[in-house]
């Protein structure tokens, strides 16, 4: 059967524009609407997780001031905060939100290759969120087993939420994974198959490379979570012993025998570590494009950046057990995983150098998206450096159960991706809405968030050195910790409340600007990539009007010598192929 590429098929067929409100905005198959739906739900559920973190911090900074925060609720808040932030906010917003919005636009297509599947993906995601939130309303509340859901703790009687919360969590995760798989198949196939004329793989913007590689990681890593969720569900509901060993529960012998809790940890982290990069790689990609655009300079070492993304993706499947150094594993295993962990630092550091070298001698515009992008470089370097410490077994063992780990992963995996999210939300806001946001409020939002998060997490490293244990509802007989630690703890809480409150600025800005912002025009930043070259802003259904764009150059032709403008859009025809006389970039 002769294969007709999608882009050609689309040119030949008339587009069926959705007519009614329902098909246009609710049961929509348009990737842009689905992206906004994904983004809206992810941000909504993220706010719930933010609220939970403030409640935790209140208990830690000012113990027993809020009377209804009891130990059970504290653990439920810890668990739900972690799971929501990592999976239902970050994964969903980067891939479901930005992936959906940017892939067809940056690849010059009219939509994803399977729009119906794409719509289903969002609705499954919404159902998974509803199931997750429903666990707040079942007897016993949501699970309080920690976001890692370690067996046997998570399904033992006496753990908060062991009545129904844990089951809802497992079902919600399974539904989320189905949603992700449907979306992921779309993202990968669209990028591989449906790129427009002239858009070779090496002309793709790094955002697409990041989203592509992260989606591949997700497609291969989420099955591990699915397997562990199904097996844990069996243990919970059917009484099998995959993970549950024979042990005493609430003073009585339980009904299980021989289950392996370590097996659960291996499965969980075989998903869990790639998950870090499922979040980080899209962030790397998006931030590269933001930095290059606002520095008016081509990204330094484009090919290295692409290969680094792929290398990090590959290596991320070989490091999972560095989360398990204290699980009693064989020291030789520890040595192996410490080595692979430290090897990941090489491509990661390469990316950081390249971002900084992109800024070097650039014509930097310090606007809101750029501030967030540069802020990300700082927090990511800090989080990355503490990761080098924790990657070594001998240093990890004493620090594993302290605030040092909390500070490390919040810096590298919480603050850093969130700063990129803000950079990206501000950067693409004019394209999505057609309006500019308020620059002053945006900058105030940046400084409050950036300095505020440092006020939270920098002191936390010192608490970790002092040996302040993580996961504790309140400090017990920990005489070795000086009393001043509590002063620091209280200040961290105040900083956390400040940062959380500052996020109101973001919402005021984006909602106010929807109506009152200046008209943005098609390409307010003077960017080269295709999404800024659409005939309409916001792009209409089908994105490109009558004719799909053709791509004549790579995505980073900024400040090309001899050109009138300081950027050349990807779809601007140029001299002939392989005839470029200028030596641009590294």
């Amino acid at each position, binding site marked *: 059967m002769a294969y007709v590429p999608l882009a050609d098929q689309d040119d030949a067929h008339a587009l069926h524009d959705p007519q009614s409100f329902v098909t246009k905005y609710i049961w929509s198959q348009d990737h842009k609407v689905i992206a906004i739906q994904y983004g809206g739900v992810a941000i909504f559920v993220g706010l719930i997780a933010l609220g939970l973190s403030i409640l935790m911090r209140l208990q830690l900074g000012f113990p027993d001031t809020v009377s209804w925060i009891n130990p059970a609720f504290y653990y439920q808040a810890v668990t739900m905060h972690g799971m929501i932030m990592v999976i239902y906010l970050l994964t969903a917003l980067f891939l479901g939100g930005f992936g959906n919005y940017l892939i067809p636009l940056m690849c010059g297509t009219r939509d994803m290759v*399977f729009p119906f599947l794409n719509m289903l993906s969002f609705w499954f995601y919404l159902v998974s969120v509803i199931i997750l939130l429903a666990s707040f309303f079942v007897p016993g509340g949501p699970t309080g087993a920690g976001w890692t859901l370690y067996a046997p703790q998570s399904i033992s009687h006496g753990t908060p939420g062991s009545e129904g919360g844990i089951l809802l969590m497992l079902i919600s995760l399974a539904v989320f994974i189905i949603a992700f798989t449907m979306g992921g198949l779309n993202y990968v196939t669209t990028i591989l198959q449906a*790129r427009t004329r002239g858009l*070779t793989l090496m002309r793709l913007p790094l955002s697409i490379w990041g989203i592509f590689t992260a989606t591949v990681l997700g497609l291969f890593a989420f*099955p591990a979570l699915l397997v562990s969720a199904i097996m844990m569900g069996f243990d919970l509901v059917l009484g099998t012993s995959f993970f549950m060993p024979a042990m005493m529960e609430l003073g009585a012998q339980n009904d299980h025998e021989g289950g392996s809790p370590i097996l659960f940890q291996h499965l969980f982290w075989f998903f869990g570590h790639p998950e870090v990069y499922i979040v980080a790689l899209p962030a790397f990609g998006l931030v590269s494009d933001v930095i290059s655009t606002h520095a008016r300079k081509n990204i330094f070492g484009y090919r290295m950046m692409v290969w680094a993304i792929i290398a990090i993706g590959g290596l991320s499947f070989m490091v999972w057990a560095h989360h398990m150094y204290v699980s009693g594993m064989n020291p030789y295993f520890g040595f192996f995983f410490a080595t692979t962990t430290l090897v990941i630092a090489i491509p990661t550091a390469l990316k950081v150098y390249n971002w900084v070298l992109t800024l070097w001698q650039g014509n930097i515009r310090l606007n809101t998206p750029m501030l967030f992008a540069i802020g990300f470089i700082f927090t990511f370097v800090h989080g990355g450096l503490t990761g080098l410490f924790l990657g070594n077994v001998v240093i990890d063992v004493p620090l594993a159960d302290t605030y040092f780990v909390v500070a490390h992963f919040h810096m590298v995996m919480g603050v850093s991706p969130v700063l990129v999210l803000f950079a990206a939300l501000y950067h693409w806001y004019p394209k999505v809405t057609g309006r500019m946001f308020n620059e002053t409020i945006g900058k105030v939002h940046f400084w409050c968030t950036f300095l505020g998060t440092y006020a939270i997490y920098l002191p936390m490293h010192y608490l970790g050195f002092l040996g302040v244990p993580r996961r504790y509802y309140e400090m017990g007989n920990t005489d070795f910790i000086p009393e001043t630690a509590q002063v620091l703890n209280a200040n961290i809480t105040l900083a956390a409340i400040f940062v959380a409150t500052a996020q109101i600025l973001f919402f005021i800005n984006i909602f106010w600007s929807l109506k009152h912002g200046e008209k943005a025009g098609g390409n307010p930043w003077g960017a080269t990539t295709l999404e800024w070259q659409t005939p309409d802003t916001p792009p209409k259904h089908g994105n490109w009007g009558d004719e799909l764009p053709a791509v004549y150059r790579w995505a980073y032709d900024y400040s090309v010598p001899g050109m009138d403008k300081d950027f050349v859009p990807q779809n601007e025809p140029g001299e002939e192929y392989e005839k*470029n006389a200028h030596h641009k970039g590294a």
Partner: protein
Amino acid sequence: MSFYRDVTRKPWNTVGLPEGIDPRPAFNMPNEKVALIIFATCASVLFSLLVVSYFIRMTVGDWVPLATPTMLWVNTGVLVLSSLCFHFAVLQSRKTGSVRFGSGAGLLSLAGGLLAIGFIVGQYSVSAQLLAAGHGLRVNAANAFFYLLTGIHVLHLLGGLWVWGKAQLRLALGSDAKDARLSLELCAWYWHFLLVIWAGLFYLLIST
């Protein structure tokens, strides 16, 4: 290899439309097939992890191997036949250039799906017999793994049958011959994939 050439190119040095004006998909096949290959890879990861878990759990002392029922051989035979039907249906459709309801290819694909339903019924009855014989899930982890592995495999097959059912419906309604051929080829690929997965699982179950 064009893929290699693509990813080693210096994009900043080249302006213009490489290789003419055609869009260049990475793989010269319909998008549905690309998506199916990716999905099959995900599913393979899922089954591999289940098998690894099986081996790790086996090492714990309480493991009592489950005697594999003979009927599994019959079921396996039915699944092989089902896969063969799809295979020949595809060959037939290539020869005649179309698939119609009631044609050779149409009948073979109908038979393939029905045999798959037979396989599922067979797997269900094996499980029912084992349960009746007292080999419950709680009794031993080996039993639990048997139900888990066969169950997840059957779930994948049910997903395939959903697509097959839709294709049969479209055939009966006399849909576009090109669409029908693609659906048939997708079913055939997926059936072969699930046969290979089942062969692996079956070997695991009879050899341990």
